[in-house]
């Protein structure tokens, strides 16, 4: 009886898949947001940076050593804010453009905020 039930359940799940043509897992993966975008290299070539999807689907910034690809730092923002874009102002300083996910509008927007960041200490020395 238990085996029959299993077999029935198996048939039902097969049927659902056949109906869609692909598995739900496939749709789920293709509905996701990209994990890594906007890769850049510091002007002196020592560090590689990349906008990274954080566990909450917001965008943060990760910095690697260009030689051995070891992790140097991760920068993620709080609340509704995320890293919209960033630039290497020089080999130790980043300008991060803050974006925020507007719950009301349902769209990602640029905030009028730029973070001037010293990479190694992960300290925003100034935020404007």
């Amino acid at each position, binding site marked *: 009886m238990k085996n029959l039930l299993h077999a029935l359940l198996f048939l039902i799940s097969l049927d659902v898949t056949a109906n*869609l043509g692909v598995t*739900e897992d496939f749709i789920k993966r293709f509905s996701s*947001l990209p994990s890594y975008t906007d890769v850049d*290299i510091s002007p002196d070539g020592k560090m590689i940076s990349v906008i990274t999807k954080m566990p909450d689907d917001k965008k943060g910034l990760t910095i690697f050593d260009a030689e051995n690809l070891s992790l140097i730092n991760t920068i993620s923002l709080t609340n509704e804010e995320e890293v919209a874009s960033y630039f290497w102002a020089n080999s130790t300083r980043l300008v991060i453009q803050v974006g925020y996910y507007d719950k*009301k509008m349902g769209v990602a927007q640029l905030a009028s905020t*730029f973070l001037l960041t010293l990479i190694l200490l992960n300290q*925003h020395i100034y935020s404007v």
Partner: protein
Amino acid sequence: MRSRNSKTNKSVLDKMSAGFVENILEDDDRHVVISAYPFAKSNTGSFVTSIRLNVYNGQQKKLGKSPLAGGQVLTDSKGIPRFAVGSDADNNSVTMYRASKKDDWQTLSKTPYGEGEVYPVNISKDGATIHILDSTQTSTFQLKKIDTLTGETEVVFHHPKFDAYPQIIDDEVLGATTNPGYTQAYWFEIDSELQNSILQAIQAFNGSIEVFNQKELTVVALTKKRDKAILVVRDSVSSPKYYLYDMSKNQMKYLLTMWPEIEDAGLEAEIPFNFRNSDGVRIYGYYTKARDQQEGEASPMIVIPHGGPHARDTWGFDPDTHIFSQAGYAVLKINFRGSTGYGKEFTKLGFGEWGGDTQADIIEATEWAIAQGIADANKIGIYGGSFGGYSAAMAPILRPDLYKSSVAYIGVFDLQMLYNEGDIKGIKWGGKYLDKTLGQDSEKIRSMSPVLHADRLDAPIIIVSGEDDQRAPVEHAYALADALKKEGKDYELIVVPKEGHGFRKPENRFMLYKKMLEHFSSTL
């Protein structure tokens, strides 16, 4: 830990502005240039201000205001605003230039919307050479080089059929690409160490990993000494991938896969095609076979018209394509009349033809795919977003025999409503833009408005809208649903809260894909 000291937390821009980093001032480690736009008015003709920002202490200095409302400002290597591009109240495309901070702004070009434009693409570090794209005299863009001292102008690249996209890396104009189907690269015959390095990189790449399909390789970053570069490699069947290229060692190192979630083996490639339509105009597009579709075997097909309409599809990786292809549908995309990339004359052919010649191209491309044996004539569905959503309603109205099922996503369905609702009419030049793209023949506009022809919309349709959509307000979806209800037609309306013109949240994208697959599966 992030420390934001409130005392130092003053705004570059006033609180009602947004901006972006326009110029990192490569030879100045202490400053960048920001283009600032007043927030609420960014679409309605506010004047861009260029601001020099000290990246150590946050000090700001205003470098000047754009002489043109809206649009963009391009600064030179010293941060001096030199080009302004924008639209005037009559929806003319205007480009202005000045030789130095002391000189007055001069109008380089002023043309009615659609009649070509001048767009600056590079100012050399020494200021001696400027490159512009110019389509005021030709249908497709000419890439021109201007000597700023003598004023001498040279056309460095022009393709008579396809728009040129210049390839500029670190101040050097190395070549140009066109996009007929696949991207075509043209390298200029110049004596350039950088160009040699990049050509070497392409060879190193081809030698070090297997290349099954055609791939596109782009340099996205370069060190100051030009000894290392970040490359991105793209194709139509897998996630883009990042590589680090060491020029001196001629070594390619794999870094990251942009979208590891979707790395799947055996996805079907996008294949460029073209055909001559019944008006004698060559139309380009892309098709993708259904999973396991054999040569000569007709498959159910989903037609996906792009948005815009003055935009285009390009070859590359598109999750929509693979969702349908893997679910057993061939996929068809069309750069119909009105699309960009094939010259301004081709774009103009779409003006006033939203429901006319543009739909005719979508329909004829569909018939082309049937004639080629790619698609099963009895199992054609249509799905699109924005203008594609409009087409997903309009094409089945025009050809109920051809399109048996539809999903219209974030679309516009009541063309007269475009003048009254949404953000386009709020833009200073918006009304003029609508007059151009929709035309001014009210009888014709009525004939192209889906809400007025719901009686002919026989294809079961799902209408999907984001409740906070500013471009194609949810009222369009309600209007079409009401019209279909009155006619007793088969429709479903899905309005998703807290989404706008294109869904961002993975759970909403998942819902949409699943709904579409269920819908097409049960109706085709």
